[in-house]
C-alpha cells in the first residue's frame, strides 16, 4: 500500500504522466501517475492520503530540487502535468466533500508586466500543495485584483513581478487590496524583489522560493 503511494510520488517528481508517455525514457511502458492514482483509489486507499503522500509529496520533491537548481522549468512543468492528470481522479472527492482543499489563493502578474513563467511555477507548486489556485493572468490592474478577490473570496493573494519598473506597481496594488480587505495576506515575489522592498510596501510575505510561500500559506491555515 505504501508502495503505491511512493510510486505515485515518484511519477509526479519525475513527470511520468501515464503509461503512454514516452518521458522519462527509463520509465517507458510503465504505469504513470494517472493509472497508479486510479489503482490506489480502487484499492480503497483514502483519496486524501493519495493526495498527500502521493501527489503533493511528489510536487514537494520537485519543488525542492528546483530550489537547489537540480531541476529546471521543464521539469516542474512536466511534474505539474503528471499531478494535474492524476487530479482528475481525485476531483470528485473534493466535490463530494470527502476531501477539502486547503483553501483558495489568487495569483497574478502585476500591471505592465507580461512575464508569466515564474508566476505559473508558483501557481503549480501551491496547487501541488493542495490549494485551489485562481490565476488572474498577466498585466493585472489593482482593480482587477480587488474585483476578483470580491467574487472569489480567496484566503490569500500572490503578486508576481519580473521587471524593476513593474515591481514598483506592487505598492499600489498592496495598498488597494488592504484598503478593501485589511486582513488579506498578500504574498509578493519575482526576481527583482528583496525582503527590504517587500517590507516597505507592507506585503505580508516575500521569498524567492515558491516552496516557502507554500509553507507560509499552510501556516496561516493552521493559525486560522
Amino acid at each position: 500500500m505504501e508502495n503505491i503511494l511512493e510510486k505515485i510520488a515518484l511519477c509526479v517528481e519525475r513527470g511520468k504522466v501515464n503509461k503512454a508517455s514516452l518521458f522519462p525514457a527509463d520509465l517507458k511502458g510503465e504505469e504513470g501517475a494517472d493509472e497508479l492514482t486510479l489503482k490506489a483509489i480502487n484499492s480503497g486507499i483514502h483519496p486524501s492520503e493519495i493526495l498527500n503522500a502521493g501527489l503533493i509529496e511528489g510536487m514537494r520533491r520537485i519543488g525542492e530540487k528546483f530550489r537547489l537548481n537540480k531541476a529546471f522549468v521543464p521539469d516542474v512543468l512536466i511534474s505539474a502535468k503528471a499531478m494535474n492528470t492524476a487530479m482528475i481522479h481525485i476531483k470528485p472527492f473534493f466535490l463530494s466533500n470527502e476531501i477539502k482543499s486547503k483553501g483558495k489563493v489568487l495569483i497574478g502578474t502585476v500591471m505592465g508586466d507580461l512575464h508569466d513563467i515564474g508566476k505559473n511555477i508558483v501557481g503549480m507548486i501551491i496547487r501541488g500543495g493542495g490549494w485551489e489556485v485562481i490565476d488572474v493572468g498577466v498585466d493585472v490592474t489593482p482593480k482587477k485584483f480587488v474585483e476578483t478577490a470580491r467574487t472569489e473570496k480567496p484566503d490569500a493573494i500572490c503578486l508576481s513581478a519580473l521587471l524593476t519598473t513593474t515591481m514598483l506597481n506592487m505598492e499600489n496594488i498592496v495598498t488597494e487590496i488592504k484598503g478593501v480587505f485589511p486582513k488579506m495576506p498578500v504574498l509578493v515575489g519575482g526576481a527583482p524583489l528583496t525582503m527590504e522592498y517587500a517590507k516597505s510596501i507592507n506585503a505580508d510575505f516575500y521569498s524567492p522560493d515558491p516552496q516557502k510561500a507554500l509553507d507560509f500559506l499552510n501556516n496561516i491555515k493552521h493559525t486560522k
Partner: protein
Amino acid sequence: MNRLSELLGIKKLLVCDGAWGTMLQNKGLKPGECPELLNLTYPKLVKEIPEAYSKAGAELVKTNSFGGNKYRLSHYSLERKIFEINKTAAEISKDGVKDKALILGSIGPSGVILMMGDTSEEEMYETYSIQASALEAGGADALLIETFSDIQEAIIAIKAAKDNTNLEIISTFTFEKTIDGDFKTMMGYTPTQICEEVEKAGIGYIGTNCGNGFEAMAYIIKEFKEKSELPLVVNANAGLPTIRDKGIYYPETPEYVSSIISKLVEAGASIIGGCCGTTPQHINEIRRVIDIMRSKC
C-alpha cells in the same frame, strides 16, 4: 550576401550596439506598452537609437523587433502586422546608421513553452518565418536570434530563418548561474549542450546575451570556446537594475564595462556589445578599448 563574415574577417573584432528596451523607456515607453508598435507610430523616435549607437561607434546595430512574433504581438492585438512591424524595424535601423554599420535583425523568443502544448512547432515556425523574411525585406544584413533559453525553440527559429532568407544567423542564449556555479539557461541547458545541438542547425555565430553583467559572460564564453569553432558573441547587460531615488539604476558603468572587455576577448569573444541597461556611452567605451586591441594585432 555574407557581409557580416566579410567585415569580421577584415576587422577581427566587432562592436555591437547596446540596449534598445531601456532606451525606448527613457524616451517614454511605459512598461506594458508594445515597444515594436513604435516603429509604426513614432519611427522618428525609434530612429534616434540606431543613430546614437552608430555615432557611438557600434559597427553592428540591432532593430526594434525583439518581440515581433505572433505570440508577443497578440497581447496588443497586433498579430496581423508582423510583417509590417518587422520590415519597418529594419528600415528604421538602416536609415539611422547611414551605411556606418551593419543591421542585425533582432528576433526574440516567443515567450510560450512548446512542451506545455499551448502552441505547435508549425505555428512557431510560421511566425518566425514571417519575421525573418520581413527583416530581410527591410534591409537587415544578418539575423540575431537572441535571449533564447530553449534549444528546441531556437532550432525552429533558426530553421525558419534559414529556409526563408539568405542571411547569416547569430544565435545567443541567456544563462543564469546555478548554485553549483555553472551556467544554465532557465530551461536547464549548458553552453556545451547548446553547441552540440544548435550548431548543426546552420548558424554562423553563437554566444550569449542578457544575463547578469559583463564579467560572468567570460565564463560562459570559455565554455563555448571549448566546444565550438564558430565566432563567439557577447551582448551583456549592465548588471541587474536596482532602485535609486525612485528611478531604475543599472550598476555597471561604461568605465567598469570597458575594464572587462579584454577578459571577454581573451575568453574567445569576437563580437561584443550590450543588452539591457547599456547605453551609447557604454558602446563608445567598448569601441575605444576594441580599437586599441585591434591596433595591437
